[in-house]
């Protein structure tokens, strides 16, 4: 046995356990789920249904509504959040800023809270007699408490606010680490050439951070399409399904309603395909290397 072959083999030996585990716990269930998505029936009594589940979802008013809701969150929330994270990151990257660690931690902290508890806190903040309403009434903006979670648009906005609060810090950390790779001298040179902070932000920071921005955009898209906790805990999908997400509906069809696992699996694969398409588009648009 030659040396390189030996090294190769030991390399594979080290890789094998992890690979095996991933295949067993991740790929095999995915494969089974794919088969399941072609079956129809209640609970355990499943029969082969071919593409039935995949055509069914396009006639399902609630599912279509949930797709619409998810895209609403995606289109509005993700850009706001990413721009905000970018601004915060470049502010906190300032060399002369004092107490940098404190600010960074404070902004990142929401991300360490539990999904359920933060959703519950937002729900009570926006209750009819919650803090937000009390303040609005006190400052004379509203006459009496407004039931934010019981109106279509305001409920969606509350979810978006919650998402921004929870995830901006998370994305900021990626940008901060990306910014460490940009030489400070580049900014100094720009300064000498008379560039304003605004110009150096758009002309230096953004282009050089592009790979990181792409990464966060794909991750956020993925995360938004799989949104679950906020819909379940903050608004319970209401009012009248106005805030229900795809994952929430999938959960309902599996566990709350008469179990229809085949249909639930098909809808999950629909999300997978959506994520894959969107990620592909983003890569094509975002990655313009020569």
């Amino acid at each position: 046995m030659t040396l390189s072959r030996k090294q190769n083999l030991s390399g594979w030996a080290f890789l094998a356990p992890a690979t095996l585990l991933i295949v067993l716990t991740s790929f095999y269930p995915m494969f089974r789920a794919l088969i399941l998505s072609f079956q129809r029936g209640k609970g355990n009594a499943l029969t082969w249904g071919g593409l039935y589940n995949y055509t069914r979802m396009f006639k399902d008013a609630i599912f279509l509504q949930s797709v619409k809701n998810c895209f609403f969150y995606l289109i509005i929330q993700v850009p706001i959040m990413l721009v905000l994270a970018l601004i915060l990151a470049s502010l906190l990257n300032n060399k002369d800023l004092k107490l940098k660690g404190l600010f960074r931690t404070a902004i990142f902290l929401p991300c360490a809270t539990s999904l359920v508890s933060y959703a519950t806190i937002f729900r009570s903040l926006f209750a009819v007699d919650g803090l937000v309403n009390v303040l609005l009434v006190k400052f004379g903006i509203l006459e009496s408490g407004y039931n934010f979670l019981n109106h279509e648009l305001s409920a969606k906005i509350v979810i978006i606010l919650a998402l921004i609060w929870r995830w901006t810090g998370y994305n900021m950390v990626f940008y901060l680490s990306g910014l460490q790779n940009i030489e400070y001298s580049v900014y100094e040179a720009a300064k000498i050439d008379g560039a304003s902070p605004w110009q150096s932000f758009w002309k230096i920071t953004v282009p050089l951070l592009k790979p990181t921005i792409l990464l966060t955009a794909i991750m956020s898209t993925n995360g938004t399409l799989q949104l679950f906790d906020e819909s379940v805990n903050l608004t319970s999908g209401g009012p009248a399904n106005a805030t229900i997400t795809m994952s929430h509906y999938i959960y309902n069809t599996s566990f709350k309603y008469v179990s229809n696992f085949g249909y639930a699996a098909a809808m999950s694969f629909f999300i997978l395909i959506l994520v894959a398409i969107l990620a592909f588009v983003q890569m094509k648009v975002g990655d313009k290397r020569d």
Partner: protein
Amino acid sequence: MKKRILAVCLAVAMVLSLVACGTKGTDEGDGKGGASTSENELTVWCWDPAFNIYAMQEAEKVYQKDHPDFKLNIVETPWNDVQTKLTTAATSGDLKSLPDILLMQDNAFQKNVISYPDAFASLKDSGIDFTQFPEAKTAYSVVDGVNYGVPFDNGTVVAAYRTDILKEAGFTVEDFTDITWDEYIEKGEVVFEKTGKPLLSCQAGEAQLVMMMLQSAGASLFDDEGKPDMVGNDALKKVLETYKELKDSGVLIEVNDWDQYVGSMTAGTVAGTVNGCWILASIQSAEDQSGNWAVTNMPRLVGVEGATNYSNNGGSSWVVTSNCKNIDLAYDFMKSTFAGSVELYETILPKSGALATYIPAGESEVYAEPQEFFGGQSVYKDVTEYSKEVPGNNTGVYYYEGQDAISTAVQNVVNGADIDGEIKTAQETTEFAMN
């Protein structure tokens, strides 16, 4: 050097936490790992320490008198987890993770027994006398004429009122007894005008009040064959109209979650409520309001055939799973406690307010005792009387689908949508889900 010490510390911490996880894991394994293997032990899943877990513990004591070796292993499992675990166990075909006995929500009963018939033991040969329970209650747990559940707690609807607030508006509880919803709204408006307090609160997006109103007329979202029966259902239409009127008049206020709902009563922002009698336990948590509450029957629908002042909301029944190794023991235990011991119900009532559906227990003197919190009213006796009047209805297998569809309709109707159109959409949504 410093780094090395730190590394050693970290390693030790990790090993320790691993060990800790390990022991915890096995502990849990013992506790939750399905039915008991020992001959004199049964494992039970239920969820409320102050209510059904307490009841089970007392049942254990009752049974231990004649069977000193008997032991119960009660595992606290919230209902949603029970449902998820049950679904997982039944669909994977591996029932070993199920306990001997579990508590099931009545509304989920039909769905689970029909979807997973192999998971539950029939009580046909258990020797339990089901005529000792009200028929409307046992109906939840009968599938194809076979009993699968031992009825437990009572979900009979009560209307509870703050007598002090009513007095301020010039009413007594008698003014709200045996009334219609029209009268309720009329009087509620007076109360609202004079005291600024709505009569009723409920959770937005939850169709519970709607379902209660519907059952009070013996109506359902489904017909006898289990098909959606919403379009052309006069009772349903009247219910939605009534709900909208309640909301528009300010007599009903919608809140967003359960805590806010209970809070509206305990904080005294509403003058009453309509719900299953289990709500009395939450009402009584506001000790400062002792003596200011009274209970009567709920309003009835106007112009609907079979309308009554009685209904049901919630409630649960005990189920023996087919994973049970000591099936005779489980039968005998249920027969001698929840389906045979007045003493058990007498013990659990005062502390937990667990109202029995076991008819002989309702005749016990403990039930007739006046309750100080309710101004000396013998509340439990009254509720037991109401429970005999509750019309039965068919919850159907697709109960939750129907309820969600109707709850969407309710929210749209409240916001001004056309009732007939919304009912039609709800029916279509439910039919689609069933297809």
